[in-house]
């Protein structure tokens, strides 16, 4: 269905990435947000706090991120599309509820504007050090979706998409910015509402007695939803549960629940995963990058090309699930992957694992605080094609 025009700021704007996320959320139909201030993400909820009362939404600042990250889950069961936003330390506090969202298959969006860590680290400076935390940060086995925009425009586009994916797969979706993308201002074009596709909540049409909240819908791996108050009298628990949602603490129930929750992401990976490829034809090296680092890598590739390197680019837009097939295919064709990232080696581990020795993987690591020097990336590319 199309976006509700009341929320959509159609037109060209100069927005920073944080504010653009807010607009993406509103366009997606998000009408509830809970938050707790933390640099460099606060602008997202500040804008929602200002915009929501004019578009029929509700923002609530809570006492901490533990509260904010579960208030959004309550709001989803109350029928709203909901988002919370944080950075670094706040993301750590939210982990328990990302797990709760995963096990209860709650369609919700978390936004993390990454800053330098560990701990309080570099509150105002960028990093990409939470990529593995986004994937594995909550205890136990689960799969979620993570997207990584590299511009304010993509902050709009991918926040919108995050809501759509959350509804499609009944899964928490994390939008992983970094401080530079969050704070850089660029042109953002917001289309007319009737050109914005919004995925509505997949409410069941079954009657209360016939409906099971955790039974995959026919021909799908994803169960349908209900809204509290509609007469379904559902039970939702963070314990391992059966298809009715009743606690079922045994090996069989655990196996069934965890495996279907994995499968709904893994088996739909081709539909979920997006990426951007450039200049791959005849490339000897491929730069795999994401977020702000992909913008810097452009310059690095240009410098390397000037020195004769045949280099192409593969930009991750979906971080999780990871584009495994694409990396495997590329690994058969090139001499090396060059993986610049603002951390001490996270996505490069995935690339290396998938390359499985068929080609080299050259991580270009940076502890964060600023972006890479493009010359360093260029040098790595030149080494890769040598």
């Amino acid at each position, binding site marked *: 269905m199309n976006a509700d025009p*009341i929320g959509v700021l159609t037109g060209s704007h100069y927005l920073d990435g944080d504010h653009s996320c807010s607009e993406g959320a509103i366009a997606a*139909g998000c009408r509830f947000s809970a938050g707790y201030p933390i640099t460099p993400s606060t602008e997202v909820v500040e804008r929602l706090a200002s915009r929501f009362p004019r578009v029929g939404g509700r923002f609530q600042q809570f006492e901490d991120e533990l509260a904010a990250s*579960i208030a959004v889950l309550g*709001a989803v069961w109350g029928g709203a599309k909901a988002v919370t936003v944080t950075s670094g330390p706040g993301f750590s506090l939210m982990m328990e509820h990302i797990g709760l969202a995963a096990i209860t298959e709650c369609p919700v969006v978390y936004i993390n504007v990454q800053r330098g860590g560990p701990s309080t680290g570099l509150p105002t400076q960028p990093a990409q050090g939470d990529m593995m935390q986004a994937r594995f940060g909550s205890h136990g086995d689960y799969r979620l979706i993570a997207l990584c925009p590299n511009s304010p425009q993509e902050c709009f586009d991918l926040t919108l998409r995050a809501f759509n994916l959350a509804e499609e797969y009944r899964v928490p979706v994390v939008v992983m910015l970094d401080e530079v993308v969050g704070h850089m201002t660029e042109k953002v074009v917001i289309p007319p509402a009737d050109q914005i596709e919004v995925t509505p909540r997949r*409410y069941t*049409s079954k009657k209360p007695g016939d409906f099971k909240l955790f039974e995959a819908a026919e021909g799908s791996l994803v169960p349908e939803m209900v809204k509290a108050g509609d007469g379904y*009298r559902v*039970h939702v628990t963070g314990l391992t549960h059966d298809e009715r949602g009743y606690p079922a603490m045994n090996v069989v129930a655990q196996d069934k629940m965890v495996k279907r929750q994995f499968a709904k992401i893994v088996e739909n990976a081709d539909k979920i995963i997006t990426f951007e490829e450039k200049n791959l034809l005849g490339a000897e090296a491929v730069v795999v990058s994401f977020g702000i680092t992909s913008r810097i890598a452009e310059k690095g590739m240009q410098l390397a090309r000037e020195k004769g390197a045949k280099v192409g680019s593969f930009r991750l837009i979906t971080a999780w699930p990871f584009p495994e097939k694409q990396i495997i295919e590329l690994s058969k064709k090139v001499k090396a992957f060059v993986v610049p990232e603002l951390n001490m080696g996270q996505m490069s581990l995935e690339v290396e694992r998938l390359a499985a020795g068929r080609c080299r993987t050259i991580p270009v690591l940076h502890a964060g605080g600023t972006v890479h020097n493009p010359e360093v990336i260029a040098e790595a590319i030149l080494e890769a094609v040598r």
Partner: protein
Amino acid sequence: MSELRENPVNEYLRLDRLPSIWCPGCGIGTTVNCFTRALTESKLDLDKVAIVSGIGCTGRVAGYMNLDSFHTTHGRAIPFATGLKLANPDLKVVVYSGDGDLSAIGGNHLVHAARRNADLLVVCVNNFTYGMTGGQVTPTTPISAVASTTPYGAYEETFNLPNLMDACGAVYVARWTAFHVRQIAKSMGEGLKKKGFRFIEIIAPCPTLYLRRNKLGDGLDEMKYYKEKSVVKNGADTREVGLDYHDKIVVGKFVDRERPTLEEAMDKRFTDVLGAKYVPYTSPGKQPLA
């Protein structure tokens, strides 16, 4: 089986989940009986009542109620419930959890929800211990009482929960013991009717851990103690209702006042400041499948 069907509480319970996990003599079930009675008398549309629990023996209450029910994470039932209520204002939202869940790990949420007058009825079953994890000390374990992590007796000052809630601005505060079943049901009924942050503390026996470890007998002995040592003082100054080990228990309705709820305060502020530009929230309805 026919006996089960005739029991008036059955309509409120998920019978296919019984028997419950609770030990014989545990006070939690007693409070649930009272809650079902309060629901009957309230004549509320049960489709519009949601129950939210944290984690613990009391945290299992949500799972046994035949309502929209949410068993969340340890300590976080209140913020979940706040989000649920803000997103679907048609609901009556009840939080049902233990002393440890609500006042230890969830203490921050408890005080802030009372301060902001979140529209929730909070039922706190206080058994002076962490039942689910084997009887450790909680913020309400009386000084000198033995718990598994205070094997030589507790020595920290305890929370006087009614006083804490009163000070934070709760609009309704009551305390009863599991002996006072009629009064509990009545208080719960009043709580279900009222708007704003309502808090009911119920002192209840945990025979398996707290009573046994303190050599206080069984559930029945504890009921005798509640009967003999509790003093009804409606409207009591909440500063005077703190509890000491195995001593007098002041019970009653201590606070009943009016204050704008979180939603009302929000609405008023936006209406005053934004005027016609304010678009009040409406809970998104169920759309047909695309």
